[in-house]
């Protein structure tokens, strides 16, 4: 069984506007505005148009000892919001 992978839309499918304490993300395909935490744009950038496993995401952020459950919870929230696909 292969590991779960995640993918975000290509960078030009999103419009990202930092607003002090939060970040507004406009998803062009759905026309929906999402309000996310300041750490999310980097995650969307790493996942833009490419499938990555949680291992690969942690490696991209050099989080070898990172909190895997927090990352999975964040990814699950983004999947539920429609900003990330799970495959």
């Amino acid at each position: 069984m292969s590991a779960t992978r995640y993918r975000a839309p290509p960078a030009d499918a999103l419009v990202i506007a930092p607003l002090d304490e939060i970040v507004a993300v406009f998803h062009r395909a759905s026309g929906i505005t999402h309000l996310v935490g300041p750490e999310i744009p980097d995650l969307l950038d790493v996942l833009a148009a490419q499938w990555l496993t949680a291992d690969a995401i942690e490696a991209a952020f050099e989080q070898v000892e990172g909190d895997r459950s927090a990352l999975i919870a964040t990814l699950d929230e983004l999947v539920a919001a429609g900003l990330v696909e799970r495959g």
Partner: protein
Amino acid sequence: MRHVFGVRVGPVAFRIGSAWRAPVEQLRTLYRDYPAHDGVPDFTVRLEAARPWRRFVRPSVHIRGDFVIPDAAPLPLAQGLLAAEMGMNLQMALGQRRFLLLHAAAVERDGRAVIMTGESGAGKSTLAALLQARGWRLMADEFVLVEPATGLVHPFPRPVSLKNAAIDVARAALPDALWGPLMRDTPKGAIRHLVPGAAALAGAETPAEPVLLLFPRYGLPAEQRPVGAGEAFVRLTQASTNYVGLGERGFTALTRLVTDVTRAAIDYPDTDSAAELIEALW
């Protein structure tokens, strides 16, 4: 329709048709200093009788137009002017696509605009009207129009709908103003429309750059606190009737607005305090 009235308010042209003469006569008086509009309007409002005989028997006004709310309750004919004003608001709220529409008031000085938003009853209409007596041009009291391409605020200086105690306060502060008829016992209490001053009507085609975004609350000791861009964005999406419909144009206009302006929540006990707070933030 038997009786028709066309008027231009800032960038928007309305045509109001009525089954009765009285509301149109009142509109002609209230809008006597506005430019007339005889061509194709942006929005049409029709004041119709619920049934043909109701034009004469206990006449009640149904609001119709390009956009309607199906179960809106009719108003008695004595409140026909209010029905026309509500109909015009409804067309804007449901049909406006050229501008990002914010439920807010705005005043201008030196080409720079202050936008004041908040829930109904927060005092923004009254404050905007009273600031006219202190050198400000009234741009809007109900709908602030933000042009997505430029970020500029365009004037929409409709008559200001003042309610209950605010009516006498504004009459004292603006003794030369033109007023509509006093309508008692409306769903919101007593209502009277105040025509914006000469500066507002002369500048009805002149946009301004928004520089200050306020969330005012009347009736509390004077105080102010900064508001983050994120909080302002969320509150303005809730205060906009067409943010979702405008798609990316709305997103770009609103994120730009909240990023570019100074933002503050102000509490104020009276107009003097509010004016001082605004001058300090200006």
